[in-house]
């Protein structure tokens, strides 16, 4: 009998409080701007934080208040920024979808190993020990911290042990670029074909000592090809994707280290 009383009393209490709260909600309702509601409605809802805000609704509010530009949302892409522009009544520039890419093609065979790492299988842990087992201190450690960080499972290890990003699945949230201790994952345009797969800034001689496929900064790709889109800075070549890409294939052929690779 006692348990029945307890049940009834608590249920009544909960019901009374619930009803009065629902009533108060109606009475004290705050009108939200229609545009803000519409903006929140079209967000992808991944809450990945790639835009730099706490979540999708925080970003929608920042855009609504004019604190942030539309188009920072990578998962939504151009389609979303267009829609946002329509709601806000402003023109939005189209920008190309960016995806992550591992700028390193070295592995245990092509890159000299300083020591055998047997610790925790985590890049940030390995890097604490003399910058990791790789002779090249700026390359990929292949321990896969980025695989764990990716919210959509777009990063995987292939049969050769290389870390690869599936550009179809990548939402461009930059979670992997933040977790990588060597900053070897950088964003490239979705359509990018030829990419310098190296992150080493050492001069040529030092690179050759530690890696067979590292960029030596020889400037062949920049100077020997007419209308080249490559530029060597700080002993590392990089592809300027805003330039005409027609000469990229020739530059890739001429590269003595074969570190300009074609993405499939």
């Amino acid at each position, binding site marked *: 009998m006692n348990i029945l*009383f307890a049940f009834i*009393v*608590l249920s009544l*209490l909960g019901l009374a*409080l619930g009803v009065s709260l629902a009533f108060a909600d109606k009475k004290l309702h*705050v009108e939200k701007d229609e545009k803000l509601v519409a903006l929140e409605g079209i967000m992808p809802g991944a809450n990945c934080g790639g835009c730099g805000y706490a979540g999708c609704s925080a970003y929608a509010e920042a855009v609504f208040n004019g604190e942030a530009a539309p188009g920072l949302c990578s998962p939504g892409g151009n389609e979303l920024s267009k829609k946002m522009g329509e709601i806000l009544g402003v023109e939005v520039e189209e920008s190309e979808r960016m995806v992550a890419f591992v700028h390193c093609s070295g592995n245990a065979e092509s890159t000299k190993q300083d020591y055998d790492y047997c610790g925790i299988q985590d890049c940030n842990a390995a890097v604490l020990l003399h910058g990791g087992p790789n002779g090249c201190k700026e390359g990929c450690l292949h321990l896969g911290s980025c695989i764990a960080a990716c919210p959509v499972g777009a990063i995987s290890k292939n049969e050769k042990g290389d870390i690869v990003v599936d550009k179809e699945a990548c939402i461009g949230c930059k979670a992997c670029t933040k977790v990588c201790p060597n900053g070897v994952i950088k964003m490239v345009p979705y359509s990018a074909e030829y990419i310098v797969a190296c992150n080493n800034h050492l001069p040529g001689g030092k690179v050759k000592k530690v890696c067979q496929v590292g960029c030596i900064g020889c400037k062949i790709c920049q100077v020997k090809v007419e209308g080249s889109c490559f530029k060597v800075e700080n002993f590392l070549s990089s592809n300027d994707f805003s330039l005409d890409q027609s000469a990229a294939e020739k530059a890739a052929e001429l590269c003595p280290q074969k570190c300009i690779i074609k993405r499939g």
Partner: protein
Amino acid sequence: MSYIGILVTYIFVNNFILVKFMGICPFIGVSKNSESAIGMGVAVTFVTAVASVACWAVYYGLLAPFGLEYLRTISFILVIAALVQLVEMVIRKMSPSLYKALGIYLPLITTNCAVLGIAIINIDNGYNLLQSFVAGIAAGLGFTMAIVLMANLREKLEMTPVRKAFVGVPITFISAGIMALAFMAFDSSLITNLGLA
């Protein structure tokens, strides 16, 4: 105990933050500037006062007649949670800027143990309705005083050369500890000596 005795007890002698160490989360979280600290203090005072009365009524009107005293914790939490929701709605309507400043700490009043603490202490001490109400206000005022003092301290600390390792939360915790030490001067003998018992 007289009403003034209850007031002095819960503002100074048994200050919820500095003596009983309840409600530390907003004490550290919302004490960055005195404006939002006052806002938080007022919100908590309102909730403790209303919660004291509501919980007293629920206990003596609903639980005691059916012999369900053992349900007091869960029903008090229910009442407090509903009250905080109400306060949140009111603040959102009345003052959006305060609503923004309090942020996440506003719903966290729900889990602020000072509120549940005063409701249970009222019952344990056998206070009547008016005494509970006064104790609730006093607990809230004590909370407000502590958090506003802390906010003023922290505003001054911002402009003080503090050693790098202590900047931010560490120096805040140290200051809070020293404040708590200072409050030990308010002893329960204060009540007896002032003839407020």
